[in-house]
């Protein structure tokens, strides 16, 4: 998915024939070809001219407006995209089918989290990690037998607490201490990285969901409201650990990000600054463009696995009996 990320502040995007010209003051930072673009993400305060917006609408290129830490305020979509062809099918899904898929998603999330911990355990064995690996297996079994969404969410919460506790053991970078997950606002650099990463991934999934014509407001695990694109939240679960947590581990433990230089503290929270955001996005893109070998298939970039899952969900909507096959790492 070819995206344009505007992570610097005070940029000005204008149309120049078939290209978008990105300026900051008088300097031209870059030029991007419109016909080959798939989405635009704007972090913080930058201006987009109406001409650019109109061209993007015509070409069905969504523009997402996000806060500097990645929270999505809203998106600009063409009016035709509002027609969600699969919405009717999604509304007709039976509660039992939804529960089954919700269980599948939670189980996949727990399994993937467990694999990430197991990888760390092989590198640096620790008692806390061993314990968490055990409790994650137990909770995965429990999740398989759960009969209500609320209880499922409860199990997921318990698993997350145990998992993040163990993940804290895995950070070795200078100046990075991670005791527990804190969000809204993130309390320290590791939490800032995790929050930002989840938000970026969530937004990409939302774009892919829209592209497939699914209604993002109807989901299985998360309760959809008109204000919450719950399907993106559902599908992001199985990717959190393998795509974001492992990336954050890499960034911190290899010293790619710097605890003193890449963060800023304000409003009682810790956030990535311009330099940190850029570093994160670079590493994120590099990782998403890396190809991996999926069982039996030929190599494909991580981007495709995201799209693959959205398509699998679509198949489930068409044919609920089949169920949903989640993304599992080994």
């Amino acid at each position, binding site marked *: 998915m*070819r*995206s*344009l*990320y505007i992570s610097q502040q005070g940029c000005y995007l204008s149309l120049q*024939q078939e290209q978008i010209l990105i300026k900051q003051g008088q300097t031209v*930072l*870059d030029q991007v070809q419109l*016909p080959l673009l798939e989405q635009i993400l704007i972090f913080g305060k930058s201006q987009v001219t109406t001409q650019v917006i109109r061209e993007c609408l015509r070409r069905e290129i969504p523009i997402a407006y996000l806060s500097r830490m990645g929270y999505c305020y809203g998106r600009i979509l063409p009016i035709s995209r509002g027609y969600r062809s699969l919405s009717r099918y999604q509304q007709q899904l039976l509660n039992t089918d939804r529960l089954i898929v919700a269980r599948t998603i939670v189980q996949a999330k727990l399994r993937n989290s467990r694999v990430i911990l197991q990888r760390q355990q092989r590198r640096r064995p620790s008692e806390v990690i061993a314990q968490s690996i055990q409790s994650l297996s137990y909770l995965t079994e429990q999740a398989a037998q759960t009969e209500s969404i609320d209880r499922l969410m409860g199990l997921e919460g318990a698993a997350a607490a145990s998992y993040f506790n163990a993940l804290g053991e895995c950070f070795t970078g200078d100046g990075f201490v991670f005791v527990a997950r804190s969000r809204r606002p993130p309390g320290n650099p590791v939490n800032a990285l995790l929050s930002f990463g989840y938000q970026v991934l969530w937004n990409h999934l939302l774009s892919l969901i829209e592209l497939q014509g699914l209604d993002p407001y109807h989901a299985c695990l998360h309760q959809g409201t008109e204000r919450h694109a719950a399907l993106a939240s559902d599908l992001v679960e199985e990717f959190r650990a393998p795509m974001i947590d492992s990336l954050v581990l890499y960034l911190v433990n290899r010293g790619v990000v710097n605890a003193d230089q890449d963060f800023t503290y304000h409003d009682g929270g810790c956030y990535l600054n311009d330099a940190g955001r850029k570093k994160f996005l670079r590493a994120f*893109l590099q990782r998403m*463009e890396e190809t991996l070998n999926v069982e039996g298939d030929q190599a494909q970039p991580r981007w495709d696995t995201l799209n693959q899952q959205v398509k699998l969900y679509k198949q489930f909507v068409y044919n609920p009996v089949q169920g949903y096959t989640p993304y599992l790492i080994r």
Partner: protein
Amino acid sequence: MLLYIVTYDIPCDKRRKKVSDLLEGYGRRVQYSVFECVLTTGKYDELQRRLKQRIKLQEDSVRFYPLSGHTLAQVEVWGGEPVTQMPGSVIV
């Protein structure tokens, strides 16, 4: 995804500007009237459809050369930029 070489010969300044503006969106100018474009078949069709509306076939000539993976490996470049790669995402 294939690499296409698109070349043109257009006597009218106005039409030539229009064609080169369009091609700037799909590929990279490597010589005055030669573009290299890495495109999916969908985008290639779109480019051709849009180009057709901007040229006059009686006077202009546009040529498209798709390169297969086999011949792409044998491309040589003397001077100037290396062969165009698939465009990636952009971070600003």
